């Protein structure tokens, strides 16, 4: 297994525990030691978040550029890598305008406060076996709670701007939050039922123990949570809160300069955070079928985060946006029932496993087959049902070789009688 020496780069947690041990030997009080360890962890997370936020600006713009048959930023530095720096310098230099009628404090706070839940989410994410800052035993619950606070801050921003578009945007955020939290929670409930723990490290351990990623046991939950994530992140196809073509920028329309820059950056941090959650819960986190013994697990984990993030970018580059009511209908009529069925089936499988003592070697492969079949049948069938009003009408045009209306001043049919 893992070397527990401090120099082992496969798990940077070893270095910290080595330091803790050394300080304990030197007789430093425990309070100080753990404060130092916690501070190191915080610094690590903030460094990671800051660096990825900057890199993600470039990644996202380049990839969207590729998808849109253009090049993307490629002038500043090698491959345009310095573009985010130039963007940041420009935004800092710009005057931060504030509308006269805006509510000063409530207007200024959200761009700063919104970073708190975004960064806090990383506290429970295990980057490696020991590379987790706070291994909460209610980690999943904690993440869901943090997700909701973001919506409150967005609502604050939109409401305090005193702008009609911002108001519409913030109303949409609240409606969307209420609709999307529930399918997301149900999706995670399926995962938690299966793994039997709410701790994120515990979920990874479960996947390690049973030699399989949870996406194989919970394909439906994965898809539901992925769609819930797009809504939570305000990304296409659920970017109705800032819908560019409708309400211009929605809640952050009145923010300029670095205040806008912070909203822009936090979007990327949030995208990173939720991609990390998906990578932990469904793609095994740092555990990768034994490969993590060769390549450091945290590097594999970051790779997985970017794989999920790429999926989100791909969505953004491809899909049109739902309308408000369609998004609600999608959440309540599609995701919610599917989530409930998924929880029911997962609970039944776990019941068979734990209460009726059917061995894991039988129940786990069986549930993979059952859950995949269930996901395929439900998604295809249910979407056919939901699309009925749209599939009833012929989609292709009729072709006429002649005009079918009388020419002006020519042979108009005589009225009868």
């Amino acid at each position: 297994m893992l070397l527990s020496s401090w120099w082992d780069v496969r798990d940077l947690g070893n270095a910290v525990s080595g330091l803790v041990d050394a300080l304990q030997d030197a007789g430093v009080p425990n309070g100080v030691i753990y404060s130092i360890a916690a501070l190191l962890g915080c610094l690590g997370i903030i460094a990671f978040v800051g660096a990825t936020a900057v890199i993600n600006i470039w990644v996202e713009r380049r990839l969207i550029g590729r998808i849109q048959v253009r090049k993307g930023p490629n002038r500043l530095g090698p491959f345009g890598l310095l573009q985010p720096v130039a963007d940041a310098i420009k935004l800092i230099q710009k005057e931060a305008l504030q509308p006269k009628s805006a509510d000063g404090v409530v207007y200024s706070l959200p761009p700063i406060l919104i970073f708190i839940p975004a960064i806090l989410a990383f506290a429970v994410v295990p980057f490696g076996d020991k590379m987790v800052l706070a291994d909460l035993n209610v980690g999943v619950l904690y993440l869901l709670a943090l997700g909701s606070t973001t919506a409150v801050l967005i609502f604050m921003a939109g409401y305090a701007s005193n702008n009609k578009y911002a108001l519409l945007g913030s109303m949409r955020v609240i409606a969307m939050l209420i609709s999307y939290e529930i399918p997301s929670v149900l999706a995670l409930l399926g995962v938690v039922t299966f793994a039997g723990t709410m701790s994120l490290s515990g979920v990874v351990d479960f996947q390690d123990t049973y030699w399989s990623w949870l996406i194989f046991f919970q394909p439906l939950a994965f898809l539901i949570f992925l769609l819930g994530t797009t809504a939570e992140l305000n990304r296409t196809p659920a970017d109705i809160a800032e819908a560019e073509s409708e309400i211009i920028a929605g809640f952050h329309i009145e923010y300029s300069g670095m205040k806008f820059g912070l909203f822009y950056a936090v979007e990327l941090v949030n995208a990173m955070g939720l991609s990390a959650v998906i990578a932990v819960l469904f793609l095994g986190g740092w555990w990768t079928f034994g490969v993590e013994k060769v390549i450091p697990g945290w590097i594999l984990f970051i790779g997985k985060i970017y794989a999920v993030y790429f999926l989100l970018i791909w969505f953004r580059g491809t899909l049109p946006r739902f309308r408000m009511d369609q998004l609600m209908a999608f959440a309540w009529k599609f995701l919610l029932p599917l989530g409930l069925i998924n929880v029911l089936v997962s609970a039944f499988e776990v019941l068979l496993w734990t209460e009726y003592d059917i061995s894991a070697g039988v129940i786990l492969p069986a549930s993979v087959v059952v859950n995949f079949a269930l996901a395929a049948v439900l998604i295809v069938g249910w979407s056919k049902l939901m699309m009925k009003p749209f599939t009833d009408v012929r989609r292709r045009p009729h072709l006429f070789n002649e005009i079918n209306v009388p020419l002006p001043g020519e042979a108009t049919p005589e009225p009868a009688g």
Partner: protein
Amino acid sequence: MVSSVAIKTEPLVVNIGPQHPSTHGVFRMRVHLDGEVITDAEMVVGYLHRSMEKLAEERTWTQNIPFTDRMDYLAAMTGNLSYCIAVEKLAGIEVPERAQYLRVIFAELQRIASHAMANGTFVNDCGAWQTPLFYMFREREKILDLFEMACGARLTLNYMRIGGVAFEPPDEFWPQLQALIDELPARIDEYDRLLLDNEILVMRSRHVGMLSAEMAINSSVSGPILRGSGVAWDIRKANPYCVYDRMDFDIPVGNIGDCYDRFVVRMEEVRQSLRIIKQALVQLPAGSHTANIPLNLIPPAGEVYSAIESPKGELGFYLVSEGGPTPFRWHVRAPSLINLSPLREMVVGQSIPDAIVTLGSIDINVGEIDR
């Protein structure tokens, strides 16, 4: 004791435009909102008014051609063409066969370019973040390259002349045109696969912005909007100009008259335009590209109205000559303006996103609305 306080409520009035990403220029829609549902809408135009119709009365007949470029700047060819045909009718000028065919080829290329733009922005309005727009731009770009070869300009072309076209296209024009014709069908099929059966796009545009055939005829709309509403009407068929009577093509007609129908009608019209170009290339005769007309053209006194099927609809010119070197009256029947007239009826009762999609499906061009 329960006290009731009367809460003061009032409808939210939002100006969509003139500065808004989805108003395609400087069009303004003043909407009254109840929540997100539009209870009333008012269209405000005039932000791009350049007084072209008055200015044209000060310029000679030939000097007025560049104005027609700057009306619908996404379809300058058809603007040129409509005006030139009107003047030719007024002055009784015979246009050589080859020029007629060249006009058909360029007008149809322009239709493809304009529809590419219209469909790209329409899907953009549905929320697909610019990707379809860039793909459509790729095709439009190739057509603009062809225009550049033929007349040196890409947007404000000024290519048609009274009595023909300005230049004979260079030799290298024809292989490049052929290459475009060869590769476009595959590209259109690709967009069909990407867009037409995209369920989100269908959800966004089906049953949205409905316009019945009766309402469409009563409000005098034309072009893809009229055809989307189920009326097979096309001036190229009804009152053929140039050599359209020798071409075999179909009129695509929508099923129920919603935004999606207008979108697929445009998509199909691109295919039909390609068919026309192919036939025109086969039939293209040798000869002069322009009639021999005097430099200082003075049509006899009289008036004329002549219209063609531009990408956006019926683009007509009403010209009055008093036998002088300049027009006495130069009036344009702009399809963009007239297609807007049923917009209020189409958007009231819908939400803001639907209104944006509806406006996108009408494919307005503010340069043409305001002139």
